[in-house]
């Protein structure tokens, strides 16, 4: 609205700017507080005292949590599921979505109908759990990977992206004698790099943040993911999660600073990729709003 820019800030603008600043402050405050306490020197930390900034800074809580086996185990579980899960998500989603751009294929309507049906109805928690159990996947990382191999929403968004690619290139390659597979690998995939980047981030964040599936499929604490570890440590207040590491100086480091350091570590990768997330995801949301 460049035409009003000549005037200075009006009262309307001031009120608006201040309100928005307050909203942003409310969004950022919990992050700030968790960071602040996690860097507090455990020796000077007083549990019931009100702090905004540490009296003295220290990395002691981080050093402690990074030395516990249970945390490192959980990190390994989460990394395993995120890496393998995301790779398979990308392969399965893009191959299937590309196939679904071929509307003349016999059976197209049936397959599309099946995909869309899953958007509006699901068998529910218990039947899904029983299937995983029957398949012998309980307490396996692959239970989480197989059960979220792709999903209707992602397929529809990727399909609408692939539909928007110029068809001429595909036709030209076909005329030059390229096979369907050749077209997919040499034309479609290179053109899809931005969408692949977006969905890599999307699927990775999904796996990183998964809580409920991990809760029901991974009951063995040696298989726990970071989310289960954080949940047990912080929300259940179960100090045993850390004590399993058998460290002797547990008494020295107060629970609260450790817990906050654990939260920071568990969201660190998300914060690191956030600039990319924000850029790509906003596009993804718009793409998704075309359908779904």
């Amino acid at each position: 609205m460049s035409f009003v820019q000549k005037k200075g800030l009006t009262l309307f603008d001031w009120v608006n700017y201040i309100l928005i600043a307050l909203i942003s402050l409310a969004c950022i405050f919990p992050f700030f507080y968790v960071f602040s306490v996690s860097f507090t020197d455990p020796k000077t930390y007083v549990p019931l005292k009100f702090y905004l900034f540490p009296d003295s800074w220290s990395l002691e809580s981080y050093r402690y949590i990074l030395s516990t086996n249970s945390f490192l185990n959980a990190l390994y579980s989460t990394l395993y599921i995120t890496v393998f899960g995301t790779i398979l998500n990308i392969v399965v989603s893009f191959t299937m979505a590309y196939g679904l751009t071929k509307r003349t294929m016999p059976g197209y309507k049936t397959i599309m109908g099946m995909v869309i049906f899953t958007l509006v109805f699901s068998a529910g928690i218990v039947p899904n759990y029983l299937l995983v159990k029957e398949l012998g996947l309980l307490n396996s990382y692959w239970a989480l990977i197989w059960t979220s191999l792709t999903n209707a929403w992602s397929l529809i968004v990727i399909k609408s992206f692939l539909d928007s690619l110029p068809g001429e290139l595909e036709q030209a390659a076909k005329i030059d004698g390229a096979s369907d597979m050749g077209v997919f690998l040499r034309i479609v995939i290179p053109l899809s790099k931005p969408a692949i980047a977006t969905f890599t981030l999307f699927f990775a964040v999904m796996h990183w943040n998964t809580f409920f599936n991990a809760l029901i499929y991974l009951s063995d604490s040696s298989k726990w993911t970071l989310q289960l570890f954080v949940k047990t440590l912080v929300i259940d207040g179960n100090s045993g999660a850390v004590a399993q590491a058998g460290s002797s100086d547990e008494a020295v480091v107060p629970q609260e600073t450790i817990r906050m350091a654990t939260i920071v570590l568990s969201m660190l990768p998300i914060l690191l990729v956030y600039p990319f997330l924000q850029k790509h995801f906003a596009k993804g949301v718009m793409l998704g709003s075309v359908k779904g």
Partner: protein
Amino acid sequence: MKSANTVPSAVKPPNPTKVPAHGGLWARVKQHKTIYLLILPGLLFFILFKFVPMWGLLLSLMDFNPYLGFSGSEWVGFAHFQDLFNDPKFYIMLRNTFMINLIGLVFHFPVPILLALMLNEIRHEAFKRFNQSIVYLPHFLSWVVVASMTFFVLSADIGIVNKLIAESGGNTISFLSNPNYFWGLITAQVMWKEAGWGTIIFLAAMAGVDPSRYEAAVVDGASRFRQIWHVTLPAIRPTIVILLVLRLGNMMDTGFEQILLMMNPLVMSVAEVFDTYAYTFGILNGQISIGVAVGLFKGLVGLVLIVIANTVVKRMGYEGIY
């Protein structure tokens, strides 16, 4: 959504991508063999992990005993559903689901719209982008992290709000264990996590408004509020209507991970919803048939609601979710 919202569904143009079939069915199948190969892994996933579990819904008609298996367990017809509808707990779950959704609808639903209007009025691009970056951030956190942060901000003993109250000599407030606060707490959490992210779709619709319409409004002497009312709001009205109807279609859904994390024995009476009940009975207590029955009831009602919502959206001339 944008391109389609002026085309009433009754007069949809014929599908331009429909190419006349070459030869017979078998010829077309053979012609697409590579395409089938590409679809196969995903299709197998849908069949195995989305459709095979639907056979499990039959367990709701049995007294399923894992030791006796499917063939050994007794068929009981709709007995579990009868029990469910006779159980006072059922009405508590129904009420909780309804209230959490209603409070969300009244208090959360308008927030992204208001926030988008406010962000849209920012005249300094850098300040706008900076605030957008901040308000989008919570969307990417897991519910475990959000629940943990809530704990550190609001819990009775170590929450910073209560530390502040205690230090200034007041009585601490048990935000997390008082049933009166639970629905409000759940809504506030959703608001904190998703309100910023929810603005994106509205901001995009606002960006499509022709600037000359604002100029015309200014010439007519419209104040900033009048400009918002007469120019910006009409531009996002279709988006609001569609999201509202679809939101009504999802009335059976409650943030399951969120409620599971925020639930504690003191707030059970206001926190129990169908999913948490199915989880507790079906998985933790091993009462599989009851868990399946509750899930099926929720799924079927949800299906009916979303189909109605989608039909309404389409009747209004917009593109629905399918």
